[in-house]
């Protein structure tokens, strides 16, 4: 069976799953006292789900390829989680759009769908997801031909959906470094740092690190540095009204960037009307460590910190 999975299995990926992501899920599970509901784009083999199975009570999988979906049904059956699994066979952006819609708006949209899809969307709209795991192809900031990037749309939809549920959640994101979109990343970095400058904050070290055109800065290629800044920064920005975002870590191996962020509904006074970014929160985000995963000569995965400057 040939696989054209853009996020192939590797020792590093497995290491990350076992030693970092699983721990994050287990901690969250323990803190809320019950298993987690999962939303994601699993592969046909559902490896993540297979590994985290004991921690999960519900799985929402979005997959538009009927062939992959079919295999997902088979694998879910083999893993004994078919009864916990809902597969939404449609485009992720469309799916998240339907999930994020207000109740009064959705009737018409649902009416156009086949009844089984309608039932599943309705079912999933009632679920509060604790883990969102997305492997995203392409950048997420660059504009698509029609305007906003598809990935940016779906992330915005997802955050809106989660905001309706008022549930804290873990967002696990994976990006391929080779994807395009550097100009838009750079724009976002520059705009953000300019804004911080206006607030009287010295951002020269940050600017030097994140906007450098050098091929490697502190062992980090340009796209990795861009993603390291933009993923938490952008998500923090679009979730600002509803969530307080903290980084639980970021990893880099081969050509992939992984981040795990924790979104917690804002307590007390709403952030509405407040200026973004709030310095403390943003500083914490940028200070989050990033780890490089690498397989050594004897096949072991070793971890190495990748430093980056933060706000003074």
């Amino acid at each position: 069976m040939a696989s054209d999975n853009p996020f192939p299995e590797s020792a590093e990926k497995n290491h990350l799953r076992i030693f970092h992501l699983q721990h994050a899920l287990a901690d969250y599970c323990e803190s809320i006292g019950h298993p987690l509901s999962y939303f994601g784009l699993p592969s046909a083999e559902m490896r993540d789900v297979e590994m985290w199975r004991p921690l999960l009570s519900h799985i929402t999988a979005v997959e538009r390829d009927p062939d992959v979906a079919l295999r997902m049904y088979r694998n879910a059956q083999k893993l004994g989680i078919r009864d916990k699994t809902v597969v939404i066979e449609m485009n992720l952006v469309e799916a998240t759009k339907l999930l994020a819609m207000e109740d009064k708006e959705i009737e018409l949209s649902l009416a156009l769908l086949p009844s089984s899809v309608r039932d599943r969307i309705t079912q999933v709209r009632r679920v509060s997801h604790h883990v969102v795991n997305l492997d995203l192809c392409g950048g997420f900031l660059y504009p698509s031909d029609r305007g906003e990037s598809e990935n940016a749309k779906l992330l915005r939809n997802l955050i809106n959906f989660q905001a309706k549920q008022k549930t804290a959640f873990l967002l696990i994101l994976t990006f391929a470094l080779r994807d395009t979109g550097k100009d838009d990343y750079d724009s976002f970095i520059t705009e953000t740092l300019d804004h911080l400058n206006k607030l009287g904050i010295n951002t020269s070290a940050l600017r030097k690190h994140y906007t450098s055109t050098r091929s490697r800065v502190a062992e980090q290629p340009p796209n990795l540095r861009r993603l390291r800044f933009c993923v938490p920064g952008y998500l923090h920005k679009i979730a600002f009204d509803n969530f307080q975002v903290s980084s639980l870590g970021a990893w880099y191996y081969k050509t992939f960037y992984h981040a795990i962020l924790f979104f917690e509904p804002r307590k007390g006074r709403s952030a509405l009307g407040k200026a973004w970014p709030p310095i403390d929160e943003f500083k914490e985000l940028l200070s989050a460590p990033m780890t490089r995963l690498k397989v050594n000569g004897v096949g072991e995965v070793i971890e190495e910190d990748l430093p980056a400057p933060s706000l003074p």
Partner: protein
Amino acid sequence: MNKQYRSLDDKFSIEDVGSTLLNHLAKGLYPADEVLREYIQNAIDAHRLWRHETDTEPDGPIQIEVRGDCLSVLDYGIGMDEREVRRVKSIAVTSKADTEIDLTGHKGVGVWAGLSFFNILTLQTTKRGLNKGYRLTIYFKKIVDLISDRADIGQVMKDNYFIEEYNEPEEEHYTIVTLQDPIRSSEWFTEVTRVRDAIQRICPCPIDPNFVFYRKLVDWYNQHDLEMFRIEVDGIPIYRTFSSAVEQFKTSSITINDVVVAEYWHAIHKTNGKMTPTNGQQVGFRVVQSGFTLGELNLYSEPMLAGFKALNVNNYASWYVGEVHIVPRSLRPNLQRNKLEESEDTRLFIHRLRKFYQQLEDTARDTADKRNNAEKARNILSKYKEYEDKVNSISNREILIGLVQLTRDDIDFLYSVKHRLETDEQAAETKKVVHLKDPSVKKTRIKILGNIRLLLERIEQPIINIHGNHELSTSSASTSKSQNLSSQANAVSSLEPENSIDTPPSNELLSTLTSSPFPSEEKTVEGEKHGDDVAQPKRTMLRESSLTNEAEGVTTPQFAKEDISEEKEIMSTNVNSTVATDLHETSSDKIHSKLDNSSLETSEKAKSSIGQSRKIPVVYAIGLLEDVLSSELSEDEDLRLGILTKFRERIDKVLLNG
């Protein structure tokens, strides 16, 4: 896409096509649920073959995935290799008839069942040991559009189907049929609940573990080698469900010339009446062939069926849940699986099946009658138990070893119950009142009657026997207690010459008997004489103004209802006066209706039942003594009275000491 498919050459030849079937299929002769059944049946046959060949269970259940505009049937059965995939596209050319095990599909309809229902069919399959899988794609709609009587089959099929292969691990074995884009009756394939209901109704899914006869039914299935297959729709297991409001699980078989043609089981509704199916529960009978339901429920149970004797049925089938599993393979379903193919065997089978329905009808009627009678018996028994308890409580109100106190209420009650029980007894003997003939009802009735008669006998017979004529007491100048007692007794005997305990005394007699044989003044004096004002029972006087003592020639007004009630209360707490008033209460049948049956408090001491030891009313004991003394000491009245007084004192003493 995770799989890379490589095209394989294939041609459609006339050998691939059965005579008229394609046309039938194109015209949509199959009902929608039967189309679904056909694909699930193929999956089940694949699981059957897997079990047969490997002697193990398949890796998973048959999975039905309702997926928007398509529906997939996944099985983990035997799977197919390239040769079999090429053959599976054949129409009405089945290979299943060659197998030695009992497969459901024989018609060769196979993958073509949905021809007029879907746009595209894809079949993906692989067999254990192969490192390849195969995908067959057929463009149903395009084929239907091209089919005509003159069409060349090769031309019709050309470019409208293709077979591909792909890599697959050797250990895999499965077949997945995906029906895409329904053209008509789409609700049958895209609505999960409909799909679920159809499968539950038609397919050999496992029995619902919550069914009240689950264990017995599973055992019965195993005993008859009837297979069940796990089927899930969208990950939810489907069960064959039956109403659990049933009882009397029965199994047997239908035979023709001593050959078993069907095995059946059934259970009947717990209460009389039809069952209402809920949550997909089956009510009635389904005829099953190779695990799949044939036609509608209660197949061939119509009152009038051409070529068969009319049935005298009245929908009693819906009082039952059950299944009739056809045994011989010669009894085959027709193409639509809504009935059996016509044949002499089929005709005989239908004849026997209709007879079976008729028997059920008769059984249901009998059961209904039995239940009605049992219900009536239960009710009457419960009433009898009430009587029995009260009779026992009366009997147990023992005031002295062997002596029982009876109040007027008691006696009223005893008479009315006696009357009722004797009426019942008579009805049970002479009429068809089945519930009254019930053994436990009868036994209880006889027991209670015996007890009542015993109690009543002690009141009436001794008095009559002791004082054969009333002159004895009426001629006596004595106003002693015993004389009063005697006079009362005589009054009874004289006014009730038949001495029938069935004949209640007249009102006249009742008014005559109202007076206490023990003057209340004396009772009070006696009570004081014994110096007991604590434990001694209260000796309340009866209202003397309302009393009549015929012996003394005093006439008082008739009993007023209120008076009776008032007295009843008084008497219920007065031991000695109760003893006395027993007499006048003896025959108060006429005032039954005027008296309520308020229960009396039972003595804490009361333990033994009347049937276990004979207990003598106090009045009888005193009367008996007086009788003896009169005959033995007739000359010495002082001595006689002395003995009687001492006897009474002794009784009082015993009473006082509890």
